[in-house]
């Protein structure tokens, strides 16, 4: 909402500089986005009169305009279709700062030769002046614009550009803003006059109005003004409309727009002669009904939409836009003026349905007061009588099925204190509310009865009144206290604690956390998931995606991580280790999807040398497994690794991670085919862990192992086994012996002299007892036991 200060001053005295005024409005809820100073950059631009327009000798579309600058005349080339002799225009001399009509960039006007004719100046469009985006023709100024006067002096004004919140449709008007200013600066508001002479025959004899669907139209007012002369509206009105970013059209149309901007009530003017049967019916559209609106668009309507109809057909979409057939034209002499009130939700639905938003619908959908309709129609009728030399019919038709009682709210002192944390003096409460147009009566011993003015449809409950008081007195005036009362008992958050713990552990281990988008696309998912998985468990789709790249809620983190990796590989060599902890979304019928906290990591590249440079030695499965070993070690979870399989991983280089026999994750080399699908040409390793499955297992305190006071006996044992025997099998057998305090694998060897199909495993074993020094005999017995069992269970032979 743009509010020119010159206009605002008509309703309220402004005793504050614009900056301070803007600050107070902002603090009270009407945010001043910017304070524009129209005219600031209009140096070398002045009001001129077009005295002659002649054809350009060398170009059909161009003309030569001669302008009078008040004693001085200049002829320039002009391309605008609407330039005509007698117009008052904005004329820029060479050196003026303008907005380029094509590039929209600021530019300095230079002298030019256009198709052979010298042109040292320009007649400007609104866009070139920075007034609006309009560039279809030049700006035509009101007739009384003083020739030769700098444009800034004539049109310049300070304009408040306000962001109005959806609860305050009353502030979508200059008068509404004036009421705020009045309350914030302690002055009173001057309401615009709404009286006029009714010299015509009674309207009731000329027109009937019927509201067929009362639920959608609480009030419909109609007035008739005859004998109007359509022409331009007076200069002062055009200036105000321009300053508020509305283009003047004709006196009648300008009045409807002006009154909407002035008091907030949208209005519509019909050509009365084009209303058939002298009848207005407010009804739902008929199935299949179609209306061509003022913008020339054919609008298919439906039963949920409200129309204004005459005896024959729809003549307007209620609250949105009038029909083209009953539009006011230069031949119009009788105006049927409509000022009505419509159901906000219905207006919004219709607006969404027709994909049509207008200044009127933006106001109606926020809930205007039906009382405003009468104020608006009287004000508009007065201006039409005055400015279009019209004759108003006697009376106004007022069908008002939705009349409501004035809102009265009982507010206790205690409630104000509880909400605001402050006991306000009775006098201050009354003064503040009255300054906003409220009524306020103190009812001893403890309450106020507050009467809400009709335009404040947003104030309904005592806490609304509390806000009114707080925002006018100033939020800064409220006290500052610390929360008292009991701190609620803590509730365990195991899932969250695990997830944050996992983040810390992996970052400590040297991985970089990433956060990627939750939405992906089927192509990406199909690269990492088997087709049957996608068809049996299709991901949730977004009905209105912003792009097909971001259309499906991901069921795996893999694809996003590989994409992130690929994009970083374009500018990065060496090892990259990324992880993400996030939710995946598994659909469930008729329910919200299951959101599963998941972990995934990808590792690729070369191990670093002393200088951190890649040392030509790519990471392998055991580099990536190390992260999981560290992770599960820190979480205190004894997981085991088994041969595994996965669509996206290389068979034989994939391990399944199990906890108590249950699969909790996966680690392996990304299949080169899959990597290639992400444009990754090097080896990549990936792991995935379902964190939810870990939740019940973590968080148990670790039980301490006592330290032995007696010396350990250390020795190496090397055995030869079949290649199929796993290190985990051998490890488990050795560790099962009670005197074995520690067994660490330190070498795996294949090749001569070890026979083909066999491998040698070497362990460093420490024997120790908690209660005595071990004798040689005890150690020998234990070693023999280990070797016997290894021989029996995995066919191991001691390596000689």
């Amino acid at each position, binding site marked *: 909402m743009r509010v020119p200060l010159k206009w605002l001053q008509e309703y309220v005295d402004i005793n504050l500089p614009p900056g301070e005024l803007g600050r107070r409005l*902002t*603090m009270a*809820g009407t*945010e001043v986005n*910017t304070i524009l100073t129209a005219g600031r950059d209009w140096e070398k631009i002045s009001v001129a009169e077009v005295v002659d327009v002649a054809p350009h000798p060398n170009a059909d579309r161009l003309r030569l305009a001669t302008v009078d600058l008040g004693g001085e005349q200049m002829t320039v080339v002009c391309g605008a279709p609407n330039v005509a002799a007698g117009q008052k225009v904005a004329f820029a001399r060479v050196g003026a700062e303008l907005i380029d009509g094509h590039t929209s960039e600021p530019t300095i006007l230079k002298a030019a030769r256009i198709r052979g004719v010298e042109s040292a100046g320009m007649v400007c469009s609104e866009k070139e002046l920075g007034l609006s985006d309009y560039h279809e023709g030049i700006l035509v100024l009101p007739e009384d614009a003083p020739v030769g006067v700098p444009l800034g002096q004539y049109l310049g004004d300070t304009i408040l550009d306000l962001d109005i*919140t*959806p*609860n*305050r449709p009353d502030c979508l008007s200059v008068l509404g803003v004036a009421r705020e200013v009045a309350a914030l600066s302690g002055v009173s508001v001057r309401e615009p006059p709404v009286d006029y002479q009714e010299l015509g025959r009674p309207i009731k004899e000329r027109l009937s109005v019927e509201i067929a669907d009362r639920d959608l139209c609480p009030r419909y007012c109609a007035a008739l003004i005859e004998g109007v002369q359509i022409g331009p509206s007076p200069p002062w009105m055009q200036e105000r409309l321009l300053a508020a970013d509305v283009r003047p059209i004709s006196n009648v149309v300008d009045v409807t727009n002006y009154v909407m901007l002035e008091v907030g009530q949208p209005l519509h003017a019909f050509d009365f002669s084009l209303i058939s049967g002298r009848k207005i019916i407010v009804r739902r559209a008929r199935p299949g009904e179609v209306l061509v609106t003022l913008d020339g668009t054919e609008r298919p309507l439906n039963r949920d939409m409200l129309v204004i109809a005459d005896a024959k057909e729809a003549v307007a979409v209620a609250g949105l836009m009038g029909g083209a057939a009953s539009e006011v034209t230069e031949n119009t002499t009788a105006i049927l003026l409509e000022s009505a009130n419509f159901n*906000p*939700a219905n207006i*919004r*639905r219709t607006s969404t349905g027709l994909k049509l938003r207008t200044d009127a619908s933006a106001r109606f*959908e*926020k809930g205007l007061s039906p009382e405003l309709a009468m104020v608006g129609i009287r004000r508009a009728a007065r201006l039409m009588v005055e400015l279009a030399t019209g004759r108003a019919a006697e009376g106004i038709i007022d069908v008002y099925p939705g009349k409501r009682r004035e809102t009265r709210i009982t507010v206790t002192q205690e409630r104000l*204190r509880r*909400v*605001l*944390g*402050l006991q306000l003096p009775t006098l201050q409460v009354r003064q503040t509310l009255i300054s906003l147009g409220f009524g306020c009566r103190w009812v001893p011993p403890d309450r106020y009865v507050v009467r809400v003015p009709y335009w404040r449809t947003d104030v309904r409950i005592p806490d609304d009144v*509390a*806000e009114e008081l*707080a*925002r006018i007195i100033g*939020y800064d005036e409220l*006290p*500052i*206290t*610390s*929360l008292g*009362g*009991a*701190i*609620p008992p*803590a509730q365990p958050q195991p899932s969250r604690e695990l997830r*944050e713990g996992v983040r*810390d552990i992996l970052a400590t*281990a*040297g991985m*970089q*956390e*990433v956060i*990627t*988008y*939750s*939405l992906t696309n089927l192509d990406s998912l199909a690269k990492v998931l088997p087709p049957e998985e996608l068809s049996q468990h299709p991901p*949730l789709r*977004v*009905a*209105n995606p912003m792009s097909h790249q971001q259309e499906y809620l991901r069921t795996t983190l893999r694809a996003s991580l590989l994409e992130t990796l690929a994009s*970083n590989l374009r500018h990065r060599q060496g090892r990259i*280790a990324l992880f993400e902890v996030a*939710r995946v*979304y598994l659909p469930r019928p008729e329910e*919200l*999807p299951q*959101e599963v906290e998941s972990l995934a990591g990808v590792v690729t590249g070369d191990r*670093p040398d*002393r*200088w951190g440079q890649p040392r030509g030695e790519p990471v392998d499965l055991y580099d990536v497994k190390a992260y999981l070993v560290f992770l599960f070690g820190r979480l205190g979870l004894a997981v085991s690794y088994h041969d595994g399989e996965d669509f996206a991983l290389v068979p034989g280089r994939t391990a399944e991670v199990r906890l108590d026999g249950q699969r909790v994750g996966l680690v392996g080399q990304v299949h080169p085919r899959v990597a290639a699908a992400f444009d990754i040409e090097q080896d990549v390793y990936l792991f995935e862990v379902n964190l939810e499955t870990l939740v019940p297992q973590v968080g148990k305190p670790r039980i301490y192992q006592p330290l032995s006071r007696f010396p350990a006996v250390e020795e190496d044992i090397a055995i030869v086994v079949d290649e199929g025997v796993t290190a985990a099998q051998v490890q488990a057998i050795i560790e099962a012996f009670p005197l074995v305090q520690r067994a660490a694998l330190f070498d795996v060897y294949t090749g001569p002299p070890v026979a083909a199909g066999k491998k040698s495993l070497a362990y460093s074993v420490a024997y120790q007892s908690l209660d005595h020094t071990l004798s040689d005999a005890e150690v020998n017995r234990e070693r023999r036991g280990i070797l016997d069992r290894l021989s029996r269970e995995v066919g191991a032979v001691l390596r000689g």
Partner: protein
Amino acid sequence: MTLPQLQELKEIEDKAKTELAAVSDEETLEFWRITYLGRRSRLNLILRGLASLPLEERRQVGAAANRLRSELEELLSQRQAQLREAAVTAVVEGGHLDVTLPGRPLTIGRLHPVTQVLRDILDAFVSMGFQVFEGPEVEWDYYNFEAVRIPKDHPARDMWDTLWVDYVRNEEYPMLLRTHTSPMQIRVMEQMQPPVRIVSPGKCYRHEATDPTHEWMHTQVEGLAVDENISMADLKGTLYEFARRLFGRERRVRFRCDYFPFVEPGADMSIDCPLCDGQGCRACNNSGWIEILGAGMVHPEVLANVGYDAERYTGFAFGLGVERVAMLRHGIEDIRLFYANDLRFLEQF
């Protein structure tokens, strides 16, 4: 006439001194010690043989042997001290390192900057007695809108452009990607009775074109405190303390009236722009203030929607954008950097 033992002591003394002069390391010195002062050294043999000597000889030889032992021990400790000193000197003067060479690389991992800032935000509230609760990102229209007083066809829905899940029930889309964390107010209050004091972080989504200040996925933190005696003054106190913990004690804080359907009175909080110190710059739209969160007193109808007694209980709620805080804190000008995950960006935090 000289006793043969005295003669031998003289020889020992000469030899020991000569050899000691040649000792240049601790190991040789230890060998010297064993040779001349050890259990089996000639000096020790003489001392042990004293008992068998006649009194006068014993007196003479004993005195000389003990004197020699003291002297050798003294020389030993002097030599030890010299050698240690020499070793220290060797290290100190032993060679000049180029201290500007890079250290050997550690493998450094890092948390995403959004994670880091989110943790700081949560820590500030947790230290004020708030507990962290999380909820679903895919939500019902009811929780995201209806229950927080944004019914269908309400113009305030324009404040939240929504991504809807393609699932139709009764000719409508009832499921959506939550546009804010405010549905957690309802979910938390449905689960617990006052006093409530929670913060709820999580991802939110908007149907919104991206640009340097807009991103369709973002992280919010919702806060909610409900009890018998909570007022706007408590809201101000809590958020004021939060802002100063996060942005520094010298920051100024401003509360102004704002509108959100689920609070009344509604407010937003700004801090004086940390980039220009409130003087006005591009980042703060020349106002000197940067809005960092929306807040207000929980609307009585929201309390009623979860079955709370809105006469007895009052509360405040707030919501803030984590990326925005991170941008302010680190001087980041383009929000899209967060989820582009370029390592050159992530490794700066």
